[in-house]
C-alpha cells in the first residue's frame, strides 16, 4: 500500500485531491497549518487516490497517514 503521510504535526487546512484522482510525483495534495504557517504536503509517490484519511479541521501528528494511493 502506498501512503502519503504528514511531514509535521498540524491542522488540515485544505485538501486538494479526492478519491479517484490521479496523483503525480510532487503534486500538492493537502495543506496543513502548523504554528500559524501553511505547510503544503506534496506527494512523494504516484497513483490514484483510494482513500482520503482526514477531514478539513482534523489535527494530525507527524507520520499520520493522510491519503492512501492505489
Amino acid at each position, binding site marked *: 500500500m502506498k501512503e502519503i503521510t504528514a511531514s*509535521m*504535526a498540524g*491542522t488540515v*487546512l485544505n485538501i486538494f485531491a479526492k478519491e479517484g484522482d490521479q496523483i503525480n510525483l510532487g503534486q500538492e495534495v493537502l495543506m496543513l497549518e*502548523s*504554528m*500559524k*504557517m501553511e*505547510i503544503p504536503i506534496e506527494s512523494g509517490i504516484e497513483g490514484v487516490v483510494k482513500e482520503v484519511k482526514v477531514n478539513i479541521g482534523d*489535527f494530525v501528528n507527524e507520520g499520520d497517514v493522510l491519503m492512501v494511493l492505489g
Partner: protein
Amino acid sequence: MGYERGNLVQKILIANRGEIALRIIRTCREMGIETIAVYSEADKDMPYVKEATKAVCIGEPPVNKSYLQAEKILAIAKSEKVDAIHPGYGFLSENAAFARQTKNEGILFIGPDPNTIELMGDKIASRQTMEKAGVPVVPGSSSGIRTVEEALNLAEKIGYPVMLKASGGGGGIGMIRCENEQALVKSFESTKSRAKAYFGSDEVFIEKYIADARHIEVQIFGDSYGNIVHLFERDCSIQRRHQKVIEESPSPFLSASVREKMYNTAIKAAKAVNYSNAGTIEFIVDEDENFYFLEMNTRLQVEHPVTEMVTGLDLVKWQILVARGESLPLLQDEIQSTGHSIEFRLYAEDSVRFLPSPGKITTLNWNQFDGVRIDSGYEEGGTVTPFYDPMIAKCIFYGSTRKDAIRSAEMFFKNIQIEGIKTNAPLFSTILENEDFRNGIYTTNFLTKQLVK
C-alpha cells in the same frame, strides 16, 4: 499630571500565552497587581503558568478550543473577580465582540473602545475612515470587491502588480501579490475562500503593490480625555511571508522631515477615531519616502520592546493606567527617543526554508550580557508544540548608536546555544553580516532578494 478618579485595578486576567503573558505579569507585579493566567493543556508547563498568581486551564490545545474560547475566558474572569482583562496580541486582542462582552460584564478591557476595534478590523472601512480624515492610503478599492470582473477592472485602472487582500485580514495572512490578469483570476476564488475560512468573511479588496517598499509604523497612545501622543516609529521592513522578523527604532531610512510628517499623520489618524490606549499606525513607504496608511493595530504590538528601549517607558503600565481612567503620564514634549534599539524574533523554524520546527528545547543558553533584553516564552526543557505561533523569544538590543546595537546582536547570536529544535538564529548572523543591512538599506524584499544573491 494628577491622578484622575478612576477604577481600581487589583487583579488582571491575561487572555494570552507565552512571552507576552510573562511580559504582562512582570509589569503587574511591579504595580502590585495580581494576575490570572489561562492555559491550554499543551501549555501547562509553560513558565507564564507558573509565574502568574493563579492559573486556570481552559481546554484542549487547538486555539479554537482554548485561547479563542471567549465565553470560557469571561466565565473565569467573573469567577475570579478580576478587575480587567489584558488580551495581549493575537487571539482575542482585536475581537470587538469579546471587548464588548468584557465591558458589559463590568470588567475593564485593556485596549481601545470596542467600536474602534471593529472599525479598524475592517480593512476597507478603516481605509475609508483614514481617507476621509486626510490620511494618505494606498491607491485601490474604496469598497469590497465581489466578482472577479470587478477586480480585473480595478486592477487595470491602478496598474499591476496589485495586492489582493482579505478585508478581515491582518498580520500578513490572507494577502497575495498578483503580477497580472492571469494571476489575479487564479488567486481570486482561493483568496476569497481562505478569507472566509480564516476571518469569517469572504470580502476582499485590491491595493496597488508598492515595489521596494518599507514597512514603518508609528506607536501612538491615547487616553479617555482626548490626549494622543506618538512614541516614534519602528521600521519593520525585514519580513518573511509578510510577517515581521526584525524591527528597529529609529528607522535607518527616513529623513528627519518625513519622520516628523509621519508622526503628525499618525496622530491625525488616531484622532480621527478618538483612539484610547496603545495603538499602532502601519505605513508603507516607497523609495521616494511617500508613505501610505496600511492598517491600524488596536493592541499592544509584538515589537513594543523596541519602543520601550528608546523611550525608557513601560507600555504595559501605560495601558493599565489609561484603562483604569487615568490620563497619559507624559505629554508629547516630555517623551524622548534616545539611542537605537533592534529586536529579532527568534522562531522555532528552519532558517533556510522557514518551515516550523516544533519539539523539545533540550538546551537553552542565552549567554546574556548587558544591553540585551530577552522576552522569552520558554525555558530549557520546555516543549514548542505545533499549535501556536513559532516565536519562542524576542531578543532586543540597545546601543547609543545603531552600530552599537548591531555589534551587541552579533556577539549575542554568535554565543547563543539552543538545541533540540531548529531556530532562525543562523539567519540572524547572516543578516547581521550583510553590507546592506549594516548600512540600513533594506526593503520588505530583503530576505527574498537582497540576502539571497
